[in-house]
């Protein structure tokens, strides 16, 4: 079975009486939510601090304060921004190429069952192969700057392809019959029937894919060590046993992962807003 991400297609249950909130669905005000998040973050930072205080070996674990200080130091240097933006650019390019290729090939596979049969084993192989194997192969085939793009692409492409394909195949046959009966043009069917049906599947794929692209891209940078990249900085920090730097760059990776997830998914959701149904999240 291949992994697929099922979009959240909650039904509009406005007409149902409100029962007790399910686990994890307790309604809170935005202020309460923010306070809860701050509390959770504070608890985990305290755990981190305690671990540092108990272990007391800077080579194994850095303190939160040191990491914050190092982050501020790094942020003041031009090299930090060059590395960060270079990594960001490579991974976003890989993600966008995969999203585009996944969509185009899903449409073509819908049109040609032979192409689907042809592509299916390739997708299976991509999914079953550890990303590190592809990165090593890519280091032989490509220049080091392209390897993170390739790694991000390989992570995202199968997810987008499969989800979009499922979205197309899952399009309501009744609506397609309606389009046929009213002799809608192909472009109109694509825009008004297929696209809205596929959108939740595409957003779900992007939601998962962007995080995977980011992790695979950074891993590729660590193995490939391109001139300017977060992965290269992490690799250097590891070589020189600069644990504080490893923690600081890892914090950058996590922070950026959250930011790009929010930005890219936000943009896709905005584009697909017209097609979202009441109570449906992407």
């Amino acid at each position, binding site marked *: 079975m291949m992994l697929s991400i099922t979009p959240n297609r909650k039904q*509009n249950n406005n007409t149902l009486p409100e029962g007790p909130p399910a686990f994890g669905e307790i309604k809170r005000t935005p202020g309460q939510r923010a306070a809860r998040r701050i509390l959770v973050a504070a608890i985990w930072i305290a755990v981190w601090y305690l671990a540092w205080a108990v272990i007391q070996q800077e080579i194994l674990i850095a303190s939160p304060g040191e990491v914050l200080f190092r982050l501020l130091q790094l942020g003041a240097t031009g090299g930090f921004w060059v590395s960060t933006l270079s990594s960001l650019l490579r991974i976003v390019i890989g993600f966008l190429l995969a999203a585009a290729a996944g969509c185009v090939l899903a449409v073509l596979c819908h049109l040609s069952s032979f192409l689907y049969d042809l592509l299916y084993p390739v997708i299976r192989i991509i999914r079953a192969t550890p990303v590190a194997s592809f990165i090593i192969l890519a280091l032989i085939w490509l220049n080091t700057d392209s390897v993170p793009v390739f790694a991000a692409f390989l992570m995202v492409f199968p997810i987008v392809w499969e989800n979009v394909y499922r979205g197309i195949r899952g399009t309501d046959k*009744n*609506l397609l*019959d*309606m389009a*046929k*009966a*009213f*002799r*809608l*043009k192909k472009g*109109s069917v694509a825009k*008004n*029937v297929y696209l*809205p049906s596929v959108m939740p599947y595409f957003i779900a794929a992007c939601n998962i894919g962007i995080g995977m692209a980011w992790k695979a891209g950074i891993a590729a940078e660590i193995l490939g060590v391109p001139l300017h990249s977060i992965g290269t900085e992490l690799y250097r920090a590891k070589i020189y046993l600069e644990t504080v730097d490893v923690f600081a760059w890892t914090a950058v990776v996590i922070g950026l992962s959250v930011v790009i997830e929010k930005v890219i998914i936000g943009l896709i959701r905005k584009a697909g807003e*017209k*097609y*979202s*149904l*009441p109570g449906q999240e992407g």
Partner: protein
Amino acid sequence: MAVQIKNISKSFGEAEIFRNFSLDLPDSGCVCLFGPSGSGKTTLLNLILDLVPPDAGQIVLPPGEISVVFQEDRLLPWASARENVRIVLEKEMDFQKADARALSALKDMFLEDCASMRPSELSGGMRRRVSLARALAYGGSVLLLDEPFSGIDAQIKDALFPMLARIKKEKLVILVTHYPEEAVRLADTIHVLSGSPVRVTQTIRLTDALRENAGESLRLARALTALLPSDSQP
């Protein structure tokens, strides 16, 4: 003849729905296909619409478009009522004209205040009326209506019947229903379908004089009801 159904055979797996079924329908007027659930009425409409191919036989259609109200509303859930109507018109006319005609069709269905609402925000009867608005705005030489009034309030139904009575003078309206009252009020000819494979067991011609006679209409409606099995009676 506007629609000629010639020796149609159609099976779904083991179930044989039609065997050498033939029926000629006129250029205009309302022909009602009446029968219990599962008597092949909707399949016949799908064959006319070319949504399912016949196993054998042929259907000859008049030139021009065929418009339809499906048994289910089949509205785009992400589009407003106005967009749902407009989308089927955009092929024939520019956006402005299509939009104006869509709004006018919704007005005819007393839905002008709901034009910007999506199907999920409308009641079942309102969705049915959007579906009717779409079919009527689309035009064409044949109008297929599959249980078009289900869920629509009696008062609104009463207002819609005269409109359909006008339309049937200009084109062929094929009404599928298992409600005898609707059949008697609208149809000029009622073909009663039943059996397996399906055949026309009875053909009833109606006149305006019969319709205007309340007693006769009621008697006919009762007779039609008696033709339905008890679990199919409305």
